[in-house]
């Protein structure tokens, strides 16, 4: 009975696996390369793999022959190895060594050398510079020169929580989709400066062939030149805490014209946002805006409900920081107050002053004090945030 049952289960499992194998869309090698570096990497990889596979099967064939031919059960009597003459010994030592040296340092070594030089040459012919900053758990992009100079934005995972907990069907780009992708012009060599604000991160798009560690307190460099328009997806490749699997990279490579149009639109958007910073906001507008900012940036740790994940991530609902006054009698914010925490961070809490705008910070503080089960009643205006930055 038991054996039959087991066989049935086993057969079912086997069948499921066979159908899966038949229908699955497998990829057996690197994804299609779209930069010169990825193309080069693919060539080097293919070449080395072929060499390795050839060596493996040649040696395996010799072993398999021996295993079948030199068996005791077939009556094969062992033949002792005889010491070769000195001349033969030298010959049989030097020749394999020479072959191996040739494979290692010429056939593999020379292309590898050229690849390294190409990979590390971030400056020659580069036409624009972008700064990529990794933070737990999002990427921030800043355009450093040209028309786009000054554009900076944060790129967050946009897959919703329900998909992750299997309460909703998963979308096509599950875990590899963001709210604000990095936009790059096609055919332009872009020098990328890499840094981080908290722990190590690694900015990786498999189709670009480049991957570089983002080290807090240091600037590292790499480059990309995307030759084919399209949307390219990757993710953080260095363990960076609990959100490591939720920090995708999405790059939208577009033609130069589309890129110019995007730059113009982005500039206009930030001009509008700056104008918003000077006006007086109502509490309702701030709370509504704050909810968006909160769920995008803060809910990863403090949770959508504000309950947090103690002890690492404290609750905001009813906490001392969100319910005691943030400004002193002189109008300046108090140390260890709500404003201080959001602007400057502490321990695992990141400093948001370089990431969020005045309006966003004002909105999120107002939201945290008047929602999530809190009801303090006060309002923080963007102008107060602007003043607090000084």
């Amino acid at each position, binding site marked *: 009975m038991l054996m039959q049952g087991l066989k049935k289960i086993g057969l079912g499992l086997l069948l499921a696996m066979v159908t899966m194998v038949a229908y699955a869309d497998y990829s057996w090698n690197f994804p299609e390369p779209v930069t010169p570096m990825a193309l080069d990497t693919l060539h080097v990889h293919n070449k080395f793999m072929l060499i390795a596979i050839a060596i493996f099967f040649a040696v395996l064939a010799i072993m398999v022959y021996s295993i079948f031919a030199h068996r005791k059960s077939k009556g094969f009597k062992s033949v002792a190895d005889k010491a070769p003459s000195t001349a033969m010994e030298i010959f049989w030592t030097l020749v394999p060594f020479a072959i191996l040296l040739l494979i290692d340092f010429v056939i593999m070594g020379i292309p590898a050398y050229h690849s390294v030089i190409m990979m590390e040459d971030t400056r020659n012919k580069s036409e624009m510079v972008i700064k990529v900053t990794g933070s737990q758990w999002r990427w921030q992009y800043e355009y450093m020169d040209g028309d786009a100079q000054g554009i900076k934005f944060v790129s967050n995972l946009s897959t919703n929580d329900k998909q992750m907990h299997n309460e909703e069907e998963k979308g096509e780009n599950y875990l590899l989709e963001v709210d604000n992708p990095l936009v790059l012009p096609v055919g332009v060599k872009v020098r990328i400066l890499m840094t981080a604000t908290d722990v190590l991160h690694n900015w990786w798009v498999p189709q670009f062939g480049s991957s570089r560690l983002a080290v807090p307190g240091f600037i590292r460099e790499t480059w990309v030149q995307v030759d084919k328009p399209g949307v390219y997806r990757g993710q953080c490749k*260095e363990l960076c805490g609990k959100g490591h699997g939720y920090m995708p990279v999405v790059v939208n490579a577009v033609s130069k014209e589309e890129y110019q149009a995007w730059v113009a639109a982005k500039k206009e958007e930030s001009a509008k946002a700056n104008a918003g910073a000077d006006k007086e906001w109502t509490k309702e507008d701030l709370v509504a805006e704050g909810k968006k900012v909160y769920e995008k940036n803060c809910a990863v740790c403090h949770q959508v409900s504000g309950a947090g994940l103690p002890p690492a991530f404290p609750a905001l609902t009813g906490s001392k920081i969100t319910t005691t006054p943030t400004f002193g009698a002189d109008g300046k914010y108090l140390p260890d107050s709500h404003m201080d925490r959001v602007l400057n961070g502490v321990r695992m809490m990141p400093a948001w002053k370089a990431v969020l705008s005045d309006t966003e910070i004002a909105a999120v503080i107002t939201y945290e004090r008047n929602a999530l089960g809190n009801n303090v009643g006060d309002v923080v205006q963007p102008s107060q945030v602007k003043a607090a930055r000084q």
Partner: protein
Amino acid sequence: MSTTTVAHHDEHADHPTGIMRWLTTTNHKDIGTMYLTFALIMFLVGGSMILAIRAELFQPGLQLMNPDFFNQLIGVHALVMIFAALMPAATGFANWMIPLQIGAPDMALPRLNNWGFWLLPPAAILLTLPFTLALFGIGDGALATGWTFYPPLSVQGGIGVDFAIFSVHLLGISSVLGSINVIVTIFNMRAPGMTLMKMPMFVWGWLITAFLLIATIPVLAGAVTMLLTDRHFGTHFFDAAGGGDPILFQHLFWFFGHPEVYILLLPVWGFIPQILQTFSRKPMYGYKAQVYSFWGIGALSVIVWAHHFFTAGLPVPALLYFMYSTMAISLPLAVLFFCWIKTMWKGSMSFETPMLFTVGWVILFGIGGLTGLVLADVAADAQYHNSYFIVAHFHYTLFAGGIMGIMAGVYYWLPKMTGHMYNEKLGKTHFWLTAISFNLTFIPQFFLGLAGMPRRIPDYALQFAEFNMISTVSAFVLGLSQLLFVYIVITCVRGGKKASDQVWEGAQGLEWTLPSPPPYHSFTEQPVIK
């Protein structure tokens, strides 16, 4: 030496019985048995952890655990497997076999030996205790940084990191004590006539392992101590804000971490030619070449560490140096492979379980070695680094190359240790189950890595689903097959067909001249090697 004198001696070997025998023992075989038992238990503990992870990765989405617990399991799995399973297993064999193979009555420093073992259980408890503490609301669980402790993540982490640091200190002290014992034993207690160049390969492998441990463990201990002071005493070794550098830790860690690979592998490389010559019924080929290769690999292993972090932004000359020096390891390793295969060639081979594991080992470790050669290339490494490709690669070297090698040794020497033959049919079944499910677990991971799946993520994009499913199903077969191994070992210890002194037809070496099981004090009269 006659068996009657042995029996007579054993009667007068006064040692306490029960638990006190094991707590106070200074006998090399008792301590070896404890090391091996401890390793087997921790192998199952580490294995259960990874099966929980594979179950989570069976499908996309979060099913069983939160990402933080996932991160704790991956790091502790690695530390348990490396420090509490593989290393103690190798040390267990050192204790059992080095005195037998060099014709000594015991290890040179028996009390140190006892102390070396009894440091391990507290270390293992320290490592895993935070899991239990978290259940009672103390701290937030075990180390969640991966086994590499990279700062600043490890500076940010909870008490699990401190527990792991102290655990590594204890394990390190234990390893250094064991290494000192091995070196002193080998240099002082060889039987008359056994020159260094007549020592069995296993003894050579361990001698070099011992030197590597003494050279590199203090560096690891220093690095984790610096981490501890960064966490609690306001130093800034790894914090740029205070003039430190997070990458400094990676240099220190891998200065230990790369030789560690060879520390785990060299004892196994000692097993392989001995088992091959036994079951090929002809002396091993190229003894001297193998010894020199061991030295070559030992020396190279301490000068190639930075290939573990090519993507960290090293200067071009450093990239080139570490790439070419890493490739150079293929030279002595090719010599070893050549000698192993030449030992089989034109032998009169039979395929008992130890031989099956050894031949399987040569093939699978070959895959680990060749993918390692490809990984040395800096440009392609940008893709392989921290992807599932590297996970598959190091499981070919450490599961196939490490654990399957240890298992070959267990089957080879178990009849000598227990005096009973194990169940050959079950042993062969265990080999085939292990070899097939191992490949079905890790071959899909090579392809996952190439397709762009990073390691250490609790959830993944839909394109990776099929390979992960195959890998998980196979991992469970692999894991459950090891219960068969436990069963085989236990039944062999309890009874079975009586093993002869020689055990295997073609076995060569001093350990096979003693009765099975060997007397309590191995060689009471020194054998003489001609």
